[in-house]
């Protein structure tokens, strides 16, 4: 069969069909259920773009920079639970994709990145727009391929989806030389594709569950420490977490990546853990006698000083990736499994043992004392808008809606995590592991492309957002009504804060000079611009933003010198948080050398 239109074939009948490499790409994407992809054309992907031209079932979002395509695919993936797909040309297209690939690797986001490559006979000759894409992405992707034979292409595409979405999810790169896109070969369907060396373990072992339950049954000061793994495991995992919490009554904290898996309105919710986490969460982590880590990885932003990390607790660690076990913190019971499988086994085991809800009243009394410190309290607006107040109002005015939040990186990100509250998983998209400024705006584009009718807000900093500003044009083109809510403090605020803390207030190159007029900029892009510098007008203007049927840049001018607190200074343990004010001598010599 040489001529056919892809759309009027059923997928199974395509198994064994003859088609070009470019057609295989589109056919495989359709077979994998891809409805949206993000990309940017160039010489080395023209055949794929040509195949896409006549393909009605895949929405292609044309970005303005390949980094935007990658982050948009991440936002799409994280907000839907599906695999994100990005497409870029060879050379600069591929290198522009390196940041989102690394970002997706660090945060375990399922993503397939397809890049064009120079024709096979030119590989290695420093041809125009040639780069060693598989070499460059080898250490920042979960796996990658250079496909040199069109008959391997379909299998490779399916294998890439399998690897990206199973086990610990991550980005997979497929580099396809242009001649392979033109060549004709035989398509294979996804059914027959498997990878014998790749067999992630998803079911927990019985003895690990038994040991974990033994510890849970006798714990007096337990805490669930949950992370992005619960989100990655799917909505079922969040549901099981809630049920297990209900059965046990154990308090719950979460990493930045895990927010939303457990409802923030719950009385046993402790708030976020970590460097800028809640006082009650960090103290509970420090003083607990049993820590149940579910899909988190003891990141240094969470643990603080390792040698003083939760010294009196026994630890259970549920993780799908065996290399996460004992990497940073020694644990007593490793449970290597998908979070939902482990949570289900624990819940069933707890019920089978007919364990009563333990009496944790002493522990909860202690937690209430920590809560009473009210660590996220901040001073009243005195003239200028406090950034915390801005996030709080944004939360109050949007919480009843179908809302998704993304962020850039900096103080605003932490204020968003502290003052915006999540009831559901997949509603919060942020760059945790890599801390990528410029993540949030393109991520919002990706989220909105998946959820056309929802309210999608990027809580941004004025410095971060300028790294990807051009994606507003993408939003306008594709009628994606994202809201970019900039907490404009005219500083790289987080850098300024660290310079205050560590370098004697020598603010070297951290002032945001020559800022654009964001309102005019919005208008120049054909979007709507709003500026607010008066607390009294904030609510009305936020409502104006929400009600505007199209992309908005909201320039929220906030108090410039506000610090993000509370904070565990680097090198300090959890129970030594800075609460009210930075004095400048919190961090010792060893701590100064850390990041």
């Amino acid at each position: 069969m040489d001529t056919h239109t892809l759309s009027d074939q059923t997928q199974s009948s395509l198994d064994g069909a003859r088609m070009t490499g470019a057609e295989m790409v589109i056919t495989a994407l359709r077979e994998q259920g891809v409805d949206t992809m993000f990309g940017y054309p160039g010489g080395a992907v023209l055949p794929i773009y040509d195949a896409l031209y006549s393909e009605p079932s895949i929405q292609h979002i044309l970005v303005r920079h390949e980094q935007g395509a990658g982050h948009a695919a991440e936002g799409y993936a994280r907000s839907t639970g599906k695999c994100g797909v990005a497409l870029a040309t060879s050379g600069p297209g591929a290198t522009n994709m390196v940041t989102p690939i690394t970002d997706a690797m660090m945060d375990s986001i399922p993503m397939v990145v397809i890049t064009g490559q120079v024709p096979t006979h030119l590989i290695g000759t420093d041809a125009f727009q040639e780069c060693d894409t598989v070499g460059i992405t080898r250490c920042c992707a979960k796996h990658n391929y250079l496909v040199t034979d069109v008959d391997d292409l379909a299998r490779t595409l399916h294998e890439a989806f399998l690897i990206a979405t199973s086990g610990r999810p991550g980005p997979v790169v497929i580099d396809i030389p242009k001649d392979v896109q033109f060549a004709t070969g035989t398509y294979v369907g996804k059914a027959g594709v498997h990878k014998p060396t790749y067999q992630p373990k998803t079911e927990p072992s019985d003895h690990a569950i038994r040991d974990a339950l033994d510890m849970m049954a006798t714990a007096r000061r337990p805490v669930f420490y949950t992370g992005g793994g619960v989100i990655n495991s799917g909505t079922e995992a969040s549901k099981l977490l809630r049920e297990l919490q209900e059965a046990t009554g154990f308090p719950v904290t979460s990493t930045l990546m895990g927010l939303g898996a457990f409802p923030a309105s719950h009385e046993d919710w402790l708030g976020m853990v970590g460097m800028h986490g809640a006082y009650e969460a960090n103290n509970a982590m420090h003083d607990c006698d049993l820590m149940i880590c579910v899909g988190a990885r003891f990141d240094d932003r969470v643990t603080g000083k390792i040698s003083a990390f939760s010294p009196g607790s026994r630890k259970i660690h549920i993780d799908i990736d065996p290399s996460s076990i004992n990497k940073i913190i020694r644990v007593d019971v490793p449970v290597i499994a998908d979070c939902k499988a482990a949570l289900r086994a624990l819940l069933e085991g707890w019920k089978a043992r007919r364990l009563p809800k333990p009496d944790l009243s002493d522990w909860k009394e202690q937690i209430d004392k920590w809560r009473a410190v009210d660590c996220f309290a901040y001073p009243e607006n005195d003239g200028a808008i406090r950034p915390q107040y801005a996030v709080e109002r944004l939360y109050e005015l949007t919480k009843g809606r179908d809302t998704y939040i993304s962020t850039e990186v900096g103080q605003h990100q932490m204020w968003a995590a502290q003052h915006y509250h999540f009831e559901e998983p997949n509603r919060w998209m942020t760059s945790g592991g890599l801390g990528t400024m410029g993540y949030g705006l393109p991520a919002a584009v990706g989220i909105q492309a998946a959820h056309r009718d929802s309210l999608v807000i990027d809580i941004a900093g004025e410095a971060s957002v300028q790294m990807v500003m051009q994606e507003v044009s993408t939003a306008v083109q594709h009628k994606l009504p994202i809201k970019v809510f900039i907490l404009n403090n005219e500083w790289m605020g987080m850098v300024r804060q660290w310079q205050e803390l560590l370098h004697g207030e020598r603010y070297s190159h951290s002032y945001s000079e020559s800022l654009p007029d964001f309102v005019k900029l919005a208008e120049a892009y054909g979007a709507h611009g709003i500026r607010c510098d008066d607390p009294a007008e904030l609510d009305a203007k936020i409502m104006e933003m929400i009600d505007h049927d199209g992309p908005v840049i909201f320039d929220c001018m906030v108090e410039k010198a506000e610090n993000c607190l509370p904070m565990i200074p680097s090198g300090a343990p959890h129970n030594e948080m800075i609460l009210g004010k930075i004095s400048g001598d919190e961090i010792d010599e060893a701590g100064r050398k850390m990041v």
Partner: protein
Amino acid sequence: MSKEPIPASAYDMDHAEEVEERRTLAVLVDNEPGVLGRVVGLFSARGYNIESLTVAEVDRGKHRSRITIVTTGTAHMLEQIEAQLLRLVPVAAVIDITKSKRGIERELALVKVAGKGDPRVEALRIAEIFRAHVIDTTNESFIFELTGASEKIDQFCELMEPLGLVEVSRTGVLSIRRGKDAG
């Protein structure tokens, strides 16, 4: 920096005070392009040592290659090395040859020695003791081929040093386990 021994961690811990062990690991991989790059890249990216590395395809039909790596590290590091290797998609298995009682390690060396007169005779005599074969000879030189444990080859080269050792080429360590079973 604090000296508290536990909990063990990658940060903030004085690794200098921990004993380093040497390990020989056999890594069975799918022989796909770039697989060696992945393994070596993992070692350099995570700061692990490679003392010796050998690789060759061992099963054409199954596209299997066997990589033998000699590495050193603390117990914690070695545990991580194994886990991180297994995270690589083409890695099918990692066998700790050192820990296994049944491990055998061998190396092959080609050793060039030049000289005349007594040293030349002495070199030949030592080679016989070590069961080294002469695979090339001129009036003034020999090339010996020698297999054995790495220490044996070290010792051979040491003895050849004063007798006119010119050049050594070694394969690095190969490994396998005794008994009837694979892996």
